[in-house]
Every structure is written in C-alpha cells, then in structure tokens.
C-alpha cells in the first residue's frame, strides 16, 4: 500500500512564525542533547543487562526515538503533565528522573519509583508531572486528559503530552480520549510516535489513512506532522505549539515520523523490519542529527557535546552500580499499600 510520506503540514507555518535555533539559548540545547545521550546510554546498559540475564522479564527501549521525548520535555514547563509509554526514556530523563531511580526500577529495588511492585518501563513520578503507565495501550490518554483538566481547574497553566504508538491509535481509548479532549478544549498534545511497526505488525495492517495526523480532522482539531528524528526542529516546534496552547487551550495531534531501531523488546530480533528501512533511519539517528545541527549551526561546540557524552557514560556506570548494591523489596511488605488507607 503506497503511503504519502509524513511531513510538516502547511498550516504549521501559517500558525506559527518561523523560529531559528538562535531563539533558544545554548544551555537548553545542551540539556536537550544530554537528555538524548543519557537515555541512549541507559538503554544500552539495559540491553546489555538483558542479554546477561540480569533483568527479570523483558527489556523495551526507545533507541532511535529519543528526539521526541527530549524535545517535548525541553519545551515543557514545571506544571505540565506527561503520559509516557515504553519508548519514552527521554521523557523520564527530560522531566528530571534520576539515572539512579531508573536503574532501581529496572533492577526492582525497594528504593525505586515503584518499589519493585511494577517493572521495567512502568514507572513515573507525579512530582515531575510524569504518569506511571499501565500496559493497556491507549489507556493513559484519557488519564492525562483528566489530569490536565484537574490541574487547570486548580489554577495551573498546565498542558499535557500524551504519547501513543502507531499501533496504539487503533485502540478505542485513543479515540475516546482525543475526542473528549477536543470537545472540552483540554490542552493535550497527543504525540503519535509513528515508528512504522506495532510489535511485528507493519502499519498498513494498523491503519489506512495516508498519515496519522489526518485523524485530527475527524476530531475537529489541528494535526501536525513532524520529523521525529530531528530534535532541534521539534524543540522549536513544541515551544511554539506549547505557548500557543497556553494562550488558546485546545487539543492537538502531532505525528512524529521515526523508526523503532531495535526489536519490540530485546527478545525480538525484528527480522521482519526491512534492512533498507533500518539503514535509512540509522543514517538519521536522532543523536547524530542533533549533534550535526547544533555544531553546524553554531550552538554548541563538538567538545561540549563530547563532554556531555562522557558525563552521561560516567553517570550510568555509577548509578547502575549503586542500584545493584541496594536491597530488593522485602516479601513481608507484599500486601502493603494496596489501599491508600491500609
């Protein structure tokens, strides 16, 4: 089935004035870059741990998709809310989760964000405005809609970012959440990370529209298509979009074109993904793209980026080792906290 390439919609330029990288100060670009690099390095470690059988259960990563969460969190403000899914390490990092906490979670330590009660990708931190996902795809989208409604009622200028995969758009929850937010003009950015596959299922068995951003029309909201591997461009875009949503609250759909660069999880060799496709996106690895743009466009020097990378590597090593030394949950606590009052 032929499919038009996703690209930025014309309306985007109409709606928002052009911005350039110089509108954003270098420290912010450094933070963006760090978010991506740190996430990548954490996930590379997780992958290694999986293959060393040091992780209970599966490992799922966002390798190749780091730009999206990095850009979105960079464009967000303190009181904003996020509902990340399994490919969103950069959302956790970008919203301030510590590397140590992330290894605590993956190693199921009592000290981790879910205290070993939930595993792997299922963590968050509402103090950072980050929800803890459940596995049921689509289900976090109405949650973030409600969260944003609540915070706004309480007087905060909150907007929300809810991520969903190309596959997740097929769920009833996606539909109900987007429609609900549209009807009540709840400022949530529904971030579709279109990485071409849902587990093994290629997107032509998931949907038939030309671009997922086209779904916006049917909800009476705006839909944008962005290059999901270009963090620099997305940061500029999300900054404008977020400001616009604060000024005129409403739901919007943003489709980010990207590719899942590893298996669905590390147990999956993803042999069903065409080699040429992988090569095409490998050439546009988001960290590489950001590095090139930031240096070429004079925002950060290569040495600065190298220093960030080295710091991230050291942070991962230290955090991993520290988490390893911490104790697992005490089985005697099994039944504690099922209810808030008991």
């Amino acid at each position, binding site marked *: 089935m032929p499919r038009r390439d996703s690209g930025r919609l014309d309306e985007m330029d109409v709606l928002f004035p052009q911005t350039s990288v110089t509108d954003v100060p270098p420290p912010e670009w450094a933070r963006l870059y760090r978010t991506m690099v740190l996430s990548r390095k954490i996930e590379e470690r997780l992958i290694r741990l999986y293959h060393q059988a040091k992780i209970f259960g599966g490992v799922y990563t966002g390798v190749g998709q780091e730009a999206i969460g990095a850009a979105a969190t960079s464009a967000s403000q303190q009181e904003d*809310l996020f509902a990340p899914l399994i490919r969103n390490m950069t959302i956790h990092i970008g919203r301030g989760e510590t590397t140590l906490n992330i290894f605590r979670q993956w190693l199921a330590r009592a000290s981790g*964000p*879910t*205290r070993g*009660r*939930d595993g792997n990708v*299922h963590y*968050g931190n*509402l103090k950072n405005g980050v*929800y*803890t996902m*459940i*596995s*049921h795809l*689509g*289900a*976090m*989208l*109405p*949650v*973030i*809609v*409600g*969260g*944003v*409604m*609540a*915070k706004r*009622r*309480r007087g905060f200028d909150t907007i929300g970012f809810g991520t969903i995969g190309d596959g997740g758009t097929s769920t*009833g*929850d996606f539909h*109900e*959440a987007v*429609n*609900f937010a549209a*009807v009540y003009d709840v400022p949530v950015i529904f971030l579709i990370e279109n990485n071409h596959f849902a587990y093994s299922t290629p997107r032509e068995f998931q949907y038939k529209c030309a671009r997922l951003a086209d779904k916006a029309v049917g909800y009476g909201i705006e839909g944008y298509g962005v290059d999901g591997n270009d963090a620099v461009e997305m940061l500029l875009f999300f900054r404008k979009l977020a400001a616009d949503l604060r000024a005129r609250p409403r739901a919007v759909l943003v489709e980010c074109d990207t590719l899942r660069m590893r298996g669905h999880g590390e147990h999956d060799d993803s042999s069903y993904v065409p080699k040429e496709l992988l090569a095409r996106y490998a050439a546009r690895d988001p960290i590489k793209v950001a590095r090139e743009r930031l240096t070429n466009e004079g925002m950060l020097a290569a040495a600065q980026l190298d220093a960030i990378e080295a710091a991230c590597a050291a942070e991962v090593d230290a955090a991993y080792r520290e988490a390893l030394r911490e104790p697992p949950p005490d089985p005697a606590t099994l039944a504690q*906290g*099922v*209810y*808030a*009052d008991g």
Partner: protein
Amino acid sequence: MVEMTYLDAIRDALRAALRDHPEVVLYGEDIGRFGGAFKVTLGFQEEFGADRCFDTPISESALFGSAIGMATQGLRPVVELQFADFGTNALHHLLNNAGTHHYRTGVPVPMTVRAPCGGGFGGGPFHSEELEAIFCHMPGIKVVYPAFPSDARNLLYAAILDPNPVVFLENKYLYRHVKELVPRAIEPVRIGAARIVRPGQEAVVLTYGAMVHEAMRAATRLAGQGYEVMVMDLRSLKPYDEDAIVAAAAATNRVLIVHEGWRTCGFGAELAALVAERAFHLLDAPVMRVTAPDVPVPYAPELESAYRPNAEKIEKALVELIEY
C-alpha cells in the same frame, strides 16, 4: 429528621459533597442540564456551575480514565455510569489502573464510580445487570451497595471522601421504592461495616441491595410462623464485614446468602467460602444461596419474576434451611 427516598438520599450526598468540598466534580452522560437518566443530579449544573457537573461524550473509557487523571491531581471526581452495564466497556481502567495505582506508585486515587444496577422494571439484559462480583474481584477497589436511604447518603459521602477508588452500586428499583426518615446531617461512616437490620436466632440471611427488602419481607412472614430470622445488610462488599458475618453465623448456626446477581462466581460464593472456612464448626446446616440463575436478565415480566429472587423464594429457602 427528613423523609427521603433512596434517590433523594443519593442526591443529597452529592450535593453536600459539592458544597463541602470544592475538589469534588461530577460528570457523566446527560448528567448536566438534563440531570441524568434518573434525574439524580437535577439542578446541580445551575447550582454549582458547568465545570462541576457536566455532560460527556458517550465514552466510558474516557470517563474512567479521566477520573483517574483527575483523582491523582487533586480532585475528587464522581462519575456516573448511565447504567452499571456500560461499565463493562472499560473495566481495564478500574482493574488495571485505578485499582493498582496506589500500590504501584504510592499516589492515591480518590474517585467514585456511581453505577445504577439491578432489575425488576423491564430493563432487559443490558439495563439490569448486577456486577458486584466483578468489581469485588479487583484488588485496590472498594465496593459499597446500600439498601436504605440513610446508608445510601452516608456511604456515598464516605465513598467520595475515601482516598481509594470506590464503586458505589445503587439499585434502580430502590430509587423510588424505599423511603426513610433520616437526620438532617450526613453521618460519617466507616466503609466495611455490616448492619443487622432485623434480629433473629433461627437463621441469618446475608444480603445487600434490593434483596435486603425482600429478605425482610420473608423474615416478617416467617415471624408469623414462629421463626425469628436475622437479616444482615452487608452494605459494604469490599471490604466486607467478616467478623460480623462470623458472629451472625455463631448466633444462628444457619446461613442463607441472597443476592440479585448471577450464581456462579457471584458475590454470594465469596460469602459462602468465608462461612465455610471461618464458621465451619458453627453450622448446623449447609450454607445455602438464593441468587439469580446463570441466565441473562430476561425482559418479559413472567420471565423476570422467575429470574429475580424475591421474598417467596427466600422464605422457601429459609424454611428448608431451618428444617434441615
């Protein structure tokens, strides 16, 4: 004291919660200007504003999911299912998200789901369901099911203030069929306490919802025949009042369980299991159940009355139990 129907009592609890607690919001299909399918929220939108009582698209998943989102951000949402039956469209939110959230993250989810349930009025298979057994199976969820206006009011208010997700089951048949004199003020109650609504020593009927009234009727008739039967209204199904049940079994040595929902894996099975485990040595007769059969709720009045437990069926079972 004021006289209230079951429906008035629910309305009164909601209004009090809206008045006393600015973080309470109500929403659901047609509950705004229209006041809901059963007119429980009539006038609220005018009184409290459209941001505290509003209509939603027909989206049960969005209802439950958004309530979880709100409850974790400082509000106390109370969502109305138009009929409990439509909750089955979105149980994943209750079981997997609302019910596990505090356990996984330490953040409570103070939301209430109002679920009008039960039959007896020609509602047919999709407007009469009793789904308490399904809700009660979910860790992290509380379930209450009042039979009287006073309990409806107190328990709903308590549910709204509870830090946990609570499914508040309200029996449609009782809406306008029961009246009670209740004090002006809402009383704080503990979710989890049963109540003996009629004393007796020959046997105890463990029941809840509309069946409390049928059991009372049966007990009254049996009193005429010289049998004094205790009727216990559970009021809370999760947690349920284990100690009160065991004490009632000890006092009567004969236990009949009655509910309007289906038999297999119904809530009565849980009660029977509790009695069989904790009150085994106290029993003089088998634990019996009077429930709906495992049949979709039929529409025709002839079928529905054969389907639905009532005072006659309860009386018959009690006689069998007492004479065992």
